[in-house]
């Protein structure tokens, strides 16, 4: 995990510096400050830690100017009650964010925060009804997640500070989710063809052979049976080779059983004794 505090801050600094001219030049963009687009350096995709965040649609909910903002912990999403709602929120410096647990077994672990910030999150796993209040003073991007549900994408972000013009953190908002299928459909067709071919092969072969004259017809009649060189009684024949094979199988079975039961099972650390 590479910490990207520096680049984030510097990029934002650049944006803020450029905001004057940019906002003046592109005043159109500045008219839509509510839904700033940002990809948080891939934090909400599976490129970040854990799984992709399904309930993040690329929108940063703008709650700037409010004293208190609520984030629901364990809201519906990500295949269960494994979502922060809203996943990404923009607040003004000094805002108190109230995290409200709406379902069980969640925590808030800080992944990344601006230099100089000391947000602790809440690493203890808490249940429904718990609330965590955190006041965010330092400007920048705070990324956090829920440890038990990181792999299903229970991740969040808090942006402290006003939207930088209309640029909204550098665009790139199209890369949300980012679940392009690695599966090539051509492989699927090839596989289907191979399976179908393998299944049809006996039928095709039968059709092919059916068109050929049968070998017995060619000769007109069957060849006479050859007489045995020597005849043996049932008890006179000793299948020594088969007996040896059975003996080898027997030894393998015994050896595997002894290994499995006495070494793998009984010799394997603590055992349930009651």
């Amino acid at each position, binding site marked *: 995990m590479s910490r990207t505090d520096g680049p984030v801050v510097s990029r934002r600094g650049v944006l803020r510096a450029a905001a004057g001219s940019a906002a003046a030049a592109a005043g159109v963009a500045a008219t839509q400050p509510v839904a700033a687009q940002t990809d948080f350096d891939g934090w909400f995709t599976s490129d970040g830690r854990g799984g992709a965040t399904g309930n993040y649609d690329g929108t940063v909910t703008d709650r700037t100017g409010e004293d208190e903002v609520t984030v629901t912990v364990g809201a519906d999403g990500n295949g269960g009650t494994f979502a922060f709602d809203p996943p990404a929120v923009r607040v003004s410096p000094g805002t108190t964010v109230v995290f409200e647990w709406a379902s069980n*077994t969640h925590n808030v672990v800080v992944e990344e925060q601006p230099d100089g910030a000391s947000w602790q999150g809440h690493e203890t*796993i808490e249940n429904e009804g718990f609330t965590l209040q955190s006041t965010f003073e330092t400007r920048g991007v705070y990324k956090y997640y829920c440890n038990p549900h990181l*792999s299903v994408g229970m991740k969040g972000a808090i942006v402290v500070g006003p939207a930088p013009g209309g640029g909204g953190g550098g665009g790139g908002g199209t890369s949300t989710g980012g679940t392009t299928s690695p599966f090539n459909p051509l492989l699927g067709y090839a596989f289907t063809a191979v399976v179908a071919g393998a299944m049809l092969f006996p039928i095709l072969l039968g059709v092919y052979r059916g068109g050929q004259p049968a070998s017995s017809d060619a000769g007109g009649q069957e060849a006479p049976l050859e007489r045995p060189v020597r005849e043996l009684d049932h008890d006179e024949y000793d299948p020594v080779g088969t007996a040896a094979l059975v003996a080898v199988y027997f030894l393998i079975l015994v050896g595997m059983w002894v290994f499995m039961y006495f070494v793998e099972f009984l010799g394997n650390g603590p055992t*349930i004794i009651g």
Partner: protein
Amino acid sequence: MEIHRFERAWLVAALVLIVAFVGTIVYGAVGAGVAMVDDSGGTVDATEPTTSPNFDDPGVYRTGDGEYDVYVLARQFSFAPGSGSPITVPAGSNVTFHVASADVTHGFNLVGTNVNTMVIPGQVSELTVSFDDPATYRLACHEYCGAAHHDMEGTVEVVPRDQFNASEVTDA
């Protein structure tokens, strides 16, 4: 019916093998003392196990000299205790795990050992394990329980007796 003497020999050998298989399992149960997990743990409220007296505060409890009860609540996707904080017990003790599920069917497996049970909602899985030596065991859920099943794991730490902080446990 006439049976060839070779066939007779390997029929007898196969029967001896079956008797030996059954014999080793009987030895395991009687001689080595391997027990099965049964329904002796009783039941809890399937949807709210925390309302049951034993699961209102899961954790490690001392029940006697070298005897501990560990109550573990399994839920999507953690063991409490176990996942956030390790389950710590002293070496040379008999530990009885009582495991209940708060949502779906989970598994409870000390990885690499025979300590292994299913955790079915409403049913307490009770299993007693003797920990002789200090060791750290990983705890895994081995019954598919949802999207982050693969993340559901924890730790059981068996610490030397003198390092075990007795104040962490309550006498039951």
